[in-house]
């Protein structure tokens, strides 16, 4: 019988939640990396026991962890103890160095600011090789490892897209979304707060901004190519040219791989939010979690409601059965919603209040997996045979 493994990154460690295909009874393991901030964990689609994790701390910086047994044990790639300690340290899995002289980007006050690596926001394992994994980092850049996260190389062509003009949002200038096109291994979509969305069609050598159709009241030029605070992108593997976006304000879609976006916010009570996900088996069924505004980062009216569109946008219905509908003031962050691929598609979300919820029936009914974790930063799901 199939089972699921939910990888939860929190502000104070990682947790792994497991259940059988019914998704009713859960085992909770953790905390792993206790006391550290775990931005993201994700497993290889080719080898589910290979899981990568981004662990960081204001004190000790970035650490990359890798598991080869489904999260039971972890190692820092290349960081094994070296009895012959006169040699050169091989442990460089947390060494993210920009290619060449990275120059500057724009600071909050409009002045040039040196490019500085701060942390890994998102890890995206390759669809074709378990040893290849991409890392989206702050200050925004895309790195790739082809040796199981032991060493990292930047794909610097991305920053050629007017990187000197990119400016951080209040949460930092992070590359937070990496979508790999399952039909075209040369195509990758990324999104950066607050620079926008970008696409490569040659495996990461060259990039182009794909922000036409986006609107932002924070940009005086209505046709600006860059500068958009894209919060999250999602696609269904069966139609990779269709991409859904939660923009700062507005929910958007493109049917031509980002060449033009249209607003699909429709009847949402507010179109501000962070996560967006697509049903595993219904490419036009989309989920968002609206929050009140960019000034008040919590759900609207004290109710945690997931909104579902079965029409690819514009027509949205609230999903509330089992979710708190009174006195709830949490948020769901951009990487904290995920779907499994069981026949009855499961939807998972983690909140800033430390709850992780599951709906085993595509959003109709919800239950709480765990109530009191630290602030949840990311949720990923693995569907296991």
């Amino acid at each position, binding site marked *: 019988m199939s089972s699921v493994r939910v990888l939860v990154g929190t502000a104070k460690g990682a947790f792994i939640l497991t259940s059988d295909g019914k998704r009713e009874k859960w085992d909770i393991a953790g905390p792993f990396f206790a006391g550290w901030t775990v931005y993201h964990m994700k497993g290889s689609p080719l080898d589910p026991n290979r899981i990568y994790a981004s662990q960081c701390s204001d004190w000790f910086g970035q650490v990359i962890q890798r598991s080869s047994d489904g999260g039971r044990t972890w190692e820092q790639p290349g960081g*094994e103890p070296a009895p012959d300690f006169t040699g050169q340290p091989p442990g460089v899995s947390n060494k993210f160095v920009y290619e060449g002289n990275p120059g500057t980007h724009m600071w909050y006050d409009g002045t040039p600011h040196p490019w500085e690596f701060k942390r890994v926001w998102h890890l995206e394992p390759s669809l074709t090789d378990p040893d290849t994994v991409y890392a989206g980092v702050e200050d925004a850049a895309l790195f790739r490892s082809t040796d199981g996260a032991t060493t990292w190389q930047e794909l610097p062509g991305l920053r050629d897209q007017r990187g000197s003009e990119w400016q951080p949002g209040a949460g930092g200038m992070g590359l937070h979304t990496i979508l790999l096109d399952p039909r075209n291994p040369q195509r990758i979509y990324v999104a950066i707060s607050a620079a926008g969305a970008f696409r490569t069609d040659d495996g990461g050598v060259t990039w182009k901004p794909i922000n036409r159709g986006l609107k932002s009241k924070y940009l005086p030029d209505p046709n600006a190519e860059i500068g958009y605070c894209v919060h999250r992108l999602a696609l269904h593997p069966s139609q990779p040219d269709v991409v859904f976006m939660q923009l700062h304000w507005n929910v958007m879609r493109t049917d031509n791989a980002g060449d033009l976006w249209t607003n699909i916010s429709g009847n949402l009570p507010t179109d501000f939010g962070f996560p967006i996900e697509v049903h595993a088996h219904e490419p036009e069924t989309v989920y968002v979690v609206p929050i009140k505004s960019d000034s008040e980062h919590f759900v609207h009216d004290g109710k945690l409601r997931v909104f579902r569109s079965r029409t690819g946008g514009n027509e949205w219905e609230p999903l509330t059965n089992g979710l708190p509908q009174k006195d709830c003031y949490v948020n769901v962050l951009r990487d904290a919603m995920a779907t499994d691929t069981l026949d009855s598609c499961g939807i998972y979300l983690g909140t800033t209040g430390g709850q992780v919820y599951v709906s085993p029936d595509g959003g109709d009914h919800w239950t709480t997996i765990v109530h009191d974790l630290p602030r949840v930063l990311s949720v990923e799901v693995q569907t296991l045979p």
Partner: protein
Amino acid sequence: MKTAVIRVELPYHLQNLARVGAEVSLEVPLPITAAAILDTLEARYPMLCGTIRDHVTKQRRPFLRYFACQQDLSHDPTDTPLPKAVVSGVEPFIIWGALAGG
């Protein structure tokens, strides 16, 4: 090459990363300086690379401190010879996290 055995005290999270106790002993080439200790520590425990000082610039991470013999050595040049009590192993070289505040 002449060496000395130096005691190094690590903060809790780095103990966990390196899977060691609160203190490790390292055979460090003379002269004993903070830089020499850190070079040896990172070579012996590669998982600590980048967690105490920057990979490239070797600058101390801002929220870490170096103490020895009741002195804060954090702002001293890292090629400054350390006190004799550290060289002789009487006192440890302490790597410590700064207060979180709040």
